């Protein structure tokens, strides 16, 4: 081959190698980039006043006076919304109005009895009140605007009668006037549709028992059991999404019989055309800023905070702690065990059929699926060994770290074996020639010289232990529960938490930032642990090389 061709081939080879490295980097960025981007929004985001309220209530973390002032201001802006909805509801909620009319009638009767009126006066007043009630109820049920006008006029004619002034019956006349005003604007044949549409608007704005709303529960509403539905949109992007749902009604429409339904969006304001509620759909988008006060927030406590309602609120503190505990404990098992096994394989064991089988077993063990280790851990550590040792047979940190240690043992053994094997024979001979025993030679000379290679094994095992999910499914991980008090308690972990959020929970789906945040925390944790090990390794290496 002539020199030119060789040179060209060399260049092509170098180019290919370079290109593959670039490609790998790009793939890595493409995979991790979006995840890190979305995960970072768990920490950096536009937090609304609702977020600050939540932080005050759940984490006792707020500038209380400033927040109180802010809440007062936002409540003022929200008051308009509350009033609009209340007024509109008065006109259409027939059941509510009928029952209120009945209520007034009863209360008026009770008042009369207390006033020591004469029997005649009492009977007459009750009679009139009952008539008013019936007139109103007839009007509420009617869809004929003429009848409504006539009845309301008849009721209002009695407004100035002396017997009603200063009594509960005055509410009759307020009600009547409000209803007439609403009825003048509403297509009475559709009042039920309005009611449904209004309920929907209210759920979007104020949330329901299982679903958070844009503004959160109204100030006078009863407290809700779940933290997540007790607050409005805590993040500006969430608020935007809810605003979109408020402004656009989605309907699944059958366009042709037998065909899949088609989603249609139409402005929700159309549903309330020409009614008292129509201005709401311009007021809310215009004043959302005032009502929620978004502000750039750095929520660094994400890494430390406990969480509520399947990670709807809060951070990944317990998960991080659990992962660290399991990892550290697992490494405590796997490092000595791995190094000692490797030392035995290299220094003491004589080659033979038993040795071949042992080696093959180690290699096979490295290829066993991790879920098998999970089941093994459950069967062996939790159900078999723990009762024998007098521990309670339940999934716990100890069982999880033992299982993970078994899982990574082959990796550790092989890395350490390689490291110990590559220690120059002359080191060992030098030490033995000075009269040192085999054990001493290993501890003082061979082990330190093999340390960089052993640390490589540590790095590999570390990443595996911190990131594995299946082995701890049954042996120590839970998706919720108290922070562990000892290694005999189960714990939440980042890996299992990520899995659980991805498959288990509808609530978790609503907070992708927390989901990605958890995954990114796991990645960061492994990176940090690895970086520490790499730094340690390079320091040991430098020391060995004597620079």
């Amino acid at each position, binding site marked *: 081959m002539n020199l030119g061709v060789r040179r060209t081939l060399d260049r092509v080879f170098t180019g290919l190698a370079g290109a593959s490295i670039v490609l790998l980097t790009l793939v890595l960025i493409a995979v991790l980039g979006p995840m890190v981007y979305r995960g970072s929004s768990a920490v950096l985001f536009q937090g609304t006043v609702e977020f600050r309220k939540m932080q005050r209530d759940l984490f006792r973390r707020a500038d209380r006076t400033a927040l109180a002032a802010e809440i007062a201001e936002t409540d003022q802006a929200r008051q308009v919304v509350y009033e609009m909805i209340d007024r509109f509801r008065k006109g259409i909620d027939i059941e509510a109005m009928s029952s209120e009319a009945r209520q007034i009638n009863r209360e008026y009767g009770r008042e009369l009895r207390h006033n020591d009126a004469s029997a005649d006066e009492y009977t007459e007043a009750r009679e009139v009140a009952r008539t008013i009630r019936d007139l109103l109820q007839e009007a509420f049920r009617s869809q004929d605007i003429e009848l409504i006008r006539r009845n309301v006029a008849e009721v209002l004619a009695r407004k100035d009668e002396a017997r009603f002034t200063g009594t509960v019956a005055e509410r009759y006349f307020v009600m009547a006037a409000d209803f007439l005003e609403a009825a003048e604007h509403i297509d009475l044949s559709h009042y039920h549709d309005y009611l449904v549409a209004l309920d929907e608007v209210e759920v979007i704005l104020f949330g329901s028992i299982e679903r958070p709303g844009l503004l959160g529960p109204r100030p006078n509403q009863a407290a809700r059991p779940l933290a997540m539905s007790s607050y409005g949109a805590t993040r500006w992007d969430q608020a935007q999404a809810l605003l979109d749902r408020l402004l656009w009604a989605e309907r699944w429409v059958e366009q042709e019989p037998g065909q899949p339904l088609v989603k249609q969006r139409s402005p929700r304001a159309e549903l309330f055309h020409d009614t008292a509620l129509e201005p709401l759909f311009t007021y809310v988008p215009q004043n959302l800023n005032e009502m929620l006060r978004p502000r750039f927030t750095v929520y660094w406590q994400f890494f430390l905070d406990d969480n509520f309602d399947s990670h709807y609120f809060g951070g990944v503190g317990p998960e991080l702690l659990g992962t660290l505990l399991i990892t550290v404990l697992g490494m405590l098992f796997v490092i000595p065990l791995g190094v000692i096994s490797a030392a035995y394989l290299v220094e003491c064991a*004589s080659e033979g059929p038993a040795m071949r089988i042992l080696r093959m077993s180690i290699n096979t063990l490295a290829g066993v699926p991790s879920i098998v280790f999970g089941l093994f851990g459950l069967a062996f550590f939790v159900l078999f060994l723990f009762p024998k040792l007098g521990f309670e047979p339940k999934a716990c940190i100890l069982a999880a770290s033992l299982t993970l240690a078994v899982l990574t043992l082959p990796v550790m053994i092989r890395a350490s074996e390689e490291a110990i094997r590559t220690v*120059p024979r*002359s*080191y*060992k*001979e*030098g*030490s*033995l*020639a*000075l*009269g*040192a*025993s085999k054990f*001493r030679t290993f501890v*003082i*000379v061979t082990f*330190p*010289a093999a340390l960089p290679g052993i640390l490589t094994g540590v790095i590999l095992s570390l990443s595996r232990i911190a990131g594995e999910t299946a082995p701890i499914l049954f042996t120590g991980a839970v998706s919720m529960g108290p922070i562990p008090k000892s290694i005999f308690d189960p714990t939440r972990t980042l890996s299992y938490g990520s899995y659980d959020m991805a498959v288990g929970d509808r609530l978790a789906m609503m907070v992708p930032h927390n989901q990605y945040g958890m995954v990114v925390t796991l990645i960061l944790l492994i990176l940090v642990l690895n970086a520490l090990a790499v730094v340690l390794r390079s320091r040991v290496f430098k*020391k*060995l*090389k*004597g*620079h």
Partner: protein
Amino acid sequence: MRVTLAHREAPESKPQAMECTYPVIRSRGFSLHYGAKVGVKDITMDIHPCSVTAIIGPSGCGKSTFLRSINRMNDLIPHVRTEGLLEVDGQNVYDKRTNLVNLRQQVGMVFQKPNPFPKSIFDNVAYGPRLQGVRRGDELQHIVEQSLRAAAIWDEVKDDLRKSALALSGGQQQRLCIARALATRPRVLLMDEPCSALDPIATGRIEDLIGQLQSTYTIVIVTHNMQQAARVSERAAFFCLGELIEYDRTEKIFSNPTKKQTEDYVTGRFG
């Protein structure tokens, strides 16, 4: 002081008493087998104290094997079998009751390639004494200094005993290894081609050192370099195919050997 062949021509300069003392190493019909393979066969020789004995011979003739038998370094190799008698200081090396630790501290060894441990210079030299149970700092310091001085490297490293031994040059490393072997105060020093990995200047310094050490220690040196054997040794043993062919004063081996094989080898006709 360079010990030359010319210098060796006056054996009278050595005190006669030395020659007559009881040999430190005594071998009687000693054989060693690796499984079915013969390492050395039927070696009978005495090695005298406070002298340098060179073992020469072609590759694979069993010189290193014999040398390593003296402090039982061959034990590391599986399936080793020995016959006959090998004594150091009247103690049978291959006796079951022999304390290996004591034996190896009595019989120091320097290897072909400098093999300092990846530790500081001080820790390298102090390794042996520490094994012997010396713990006191000043005592260790004293032993280390003495050993480094004896190995003629003290002046080069005295300011930097905490430096890693691997930062030294090859020749310095080898002298450090000698110092390390001397630190256990051995009677015998085995040297397995100690200069084969060194350049001529470093070799010269090691040879000077051997010359200085021979008044105190019994040195057995295996070498491929016949000039070196002639320069440093008082007696020489010629090995071939696992057998001891001839063992005599060095000048006799090089000038007037009894056996034809030896003559062929030293004159370069063979090997």
